């Protein structure tokens, strides 16, 4: 549902049906809504059989990269005698993204069940759920649900009487966007600075505590229980445009729409319908100017690209951007694109872990040049300088935070160049005071 709004007829509420329903938070409430049937079923399956169902569903990672989930699980070694770990990524810090928060606080047992099934599939006994430190309320609710699940015996040393051990441990973050990057997250759990690690080795070989590890996003894991109950083919059938994009996707929409919130669509719904029907379009008298569809790290789209776009991995890629995390930022004609791109660059500069020179220097320098332009002190050559900096920040660092800073700058200059030039020529009054 378009939480906090009622379910729209064009939504497919699979994960979001009970958002806003306080009774669904408790163990009893969740069981009354069909909870833990999937885990019971999965406990009777082999790990390979669980992986096969998820492969057949076409489920892809909802954390940003869209990697096929079943395939990722199949990379975990078999019979290696080592402890395996599952990490659940509940760091959700990408600007515009606030969907995992609703799962944590409204349907925590859906996530616990998803974690338990995934742990069985990858032969792990322990799942660490890494929740960003700022999510105080979601964390409290989720921890209470974990305690209830232990007390009910659905997880613990003898999960549902199966003789199998399933532990779920909540690990609270302490402020750092970069900890959403998978290996930085592992370092944060290990009690280290949240610096991303150089890959390879990949987590399936050497991850958390040096052991084979799988990491999945909250929404990815919450989608697993319905797939187990209703089958891979059923989930794969939920697709309106590309057969490579299956199931439902939570899209958190914010910015200048009349009804911002977390909507659940079948993959492939036209983006125009999402923004104008489900979210109610722009405020009266306003027109659409730009959309950043997948969290702040993806290219900015124009209204023409939005009008032609199917909301799924392939559809958004065809329009030159990415589905990413599904955090959609909508901007109307009141938006100063240069100022907002500066804000985003400042975000990445603030969040850089500073290990790589190109990222540390590049994000800071990009921000300073954009600020200079906004003060009316820019030069035309600054635009080329920004683009050459962006080039030096793309594909040259340990993780893609650096690339993420370059992306809105490059697409912003390509699509809204006139706004940059207006500040530089003085046609537009400075938006920032001189220093």
């Amino acid at each position, binding site marked *: 549902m378009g939480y906090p709004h009622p379910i729209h007829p064009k939504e497919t509420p699979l994960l979001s049906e009970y958002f806003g329903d306080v009774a669904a938070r408790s163990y009893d409430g969740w069981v009354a809504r069909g909870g833990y049937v999937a885990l019971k079923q999965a406990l009777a399956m082999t790990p390979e059989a669980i992986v096969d169902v998820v492969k057949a569903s076409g489920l892809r990672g909802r954390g940003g990269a869209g990697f096929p989930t079943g395939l990722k699980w199949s990379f975990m070694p078999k019979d290696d005698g080592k402890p395996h770990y599952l990490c659940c990524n509940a760091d959700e810090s990408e600007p515009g993204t606030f969907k*995992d928060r609703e799962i944590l606080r409204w349907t925590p047992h859906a996530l616990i069940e998803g974690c338990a099934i995934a742990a069985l599939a990858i032969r792990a006994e322990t799942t660490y759920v890494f929740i960003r430190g700022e999510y105080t309320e979601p964390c409290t609710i989720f921890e209470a649900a974990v305690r209830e699940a232990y007390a009910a015996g659905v997880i613990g040393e003898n999960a549902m009487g199966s003789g199998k051990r399933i532990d779920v441990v909540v690990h609270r973050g302490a402020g750092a966007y970069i900890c959403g990057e998978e290996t930085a997250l592992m370092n944060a759990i290990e009690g280290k600075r949240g610096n991303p690690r150089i890959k390879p080795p990949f987590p399936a070989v050497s991850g958390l505590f040096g052991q084979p590890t799988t990491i999945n996003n909250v929404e990815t894991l919450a989608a697993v229980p319905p797939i187990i109950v209703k089958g891979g083919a059923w989930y794969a059938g939920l697709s309106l445009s590309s057969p490579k994009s299956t199931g439902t996707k939570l899209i958190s929409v914010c910015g200048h729409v009349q009804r911002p*919130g977390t909507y659940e669509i079948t993959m492939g719904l036209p983006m125009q319908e999402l923004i104008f029907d489900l979210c109610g379009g722009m405020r009266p008298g306003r027109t659409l100017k730009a959309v950043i569809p997948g969290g702040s790290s993806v290219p900015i789209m124009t209204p023409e690209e939005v009008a032609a776009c199917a909301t799924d991995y392939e559809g958004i890629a065809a329009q030159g951007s990415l589905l990413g995390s599904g955090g959609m930022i909508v901007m109307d004609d*009141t938006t100063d694109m240069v100022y907002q791109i500066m804000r985003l660059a400042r975000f990445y500069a603030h969040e850089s872990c500073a290990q790589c020179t190109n990222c540390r220097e590049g994000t800071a320098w990009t921000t300073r040049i954009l600020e200079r332009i906004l003060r009316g002190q820019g030069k035309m050559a600054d635009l080329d300088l920004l683009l050459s900096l962006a080039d030096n920040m793309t594909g040259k660092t340990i993780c893609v935070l650096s690339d993420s800073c370059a992306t809105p700058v490059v697409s912003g200059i390509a699509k809204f160049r006139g706004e940059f030039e207006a500040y530089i020529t003085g046609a537009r009054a400075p938006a920032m005071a001189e220093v």
Partner: protein
Amino acid sequence: MSTHSTEPYRPVFTGETRDRLEALGTKYPTRQALLLPALWAIQEERGWVSPEAITEVAEFLQVTPAYVRGVVTFYTMYHTHPVGRHFIQVCTTSPCNICGAEGVVEAFLEHTGCLDLGATSPDGRFTVIEVECLGACAFVTPVLINDDFIESVTAESVPALLARYP
């Protein structure tokens, strides 16, 4: 409040707190994994992570104080200086910015008497900072006051909100 107290340091990891952390330790294969939880325990108890607290954590986990300091300073939510009785974090990242977050920050500064971002009000009651995306962008402007996550704060609602934090 001053950074240097004349009173001797009272350890945090005693009694129940120690027991709780030791129990949590059984869920991890290394002792070092308790570092973030241990720092949270310190901050909950004392309001900030002092140099003496860093030494206590280091001894508890058998790592060096320099190592602990390196971790503390990496994570923005740990305070390495004392802060006001009520710590206010206002999101001003792009999605909130385009919907009016800057006005909310100004209202907080004005009504708390804090002279600047990051500075504590003269009565010691408040510290206000801007933070990056709080992950609740549909509820502009989201604000964290201590551990209370408050949605949809407007400049107009700030005075009544502050009254709840004496």
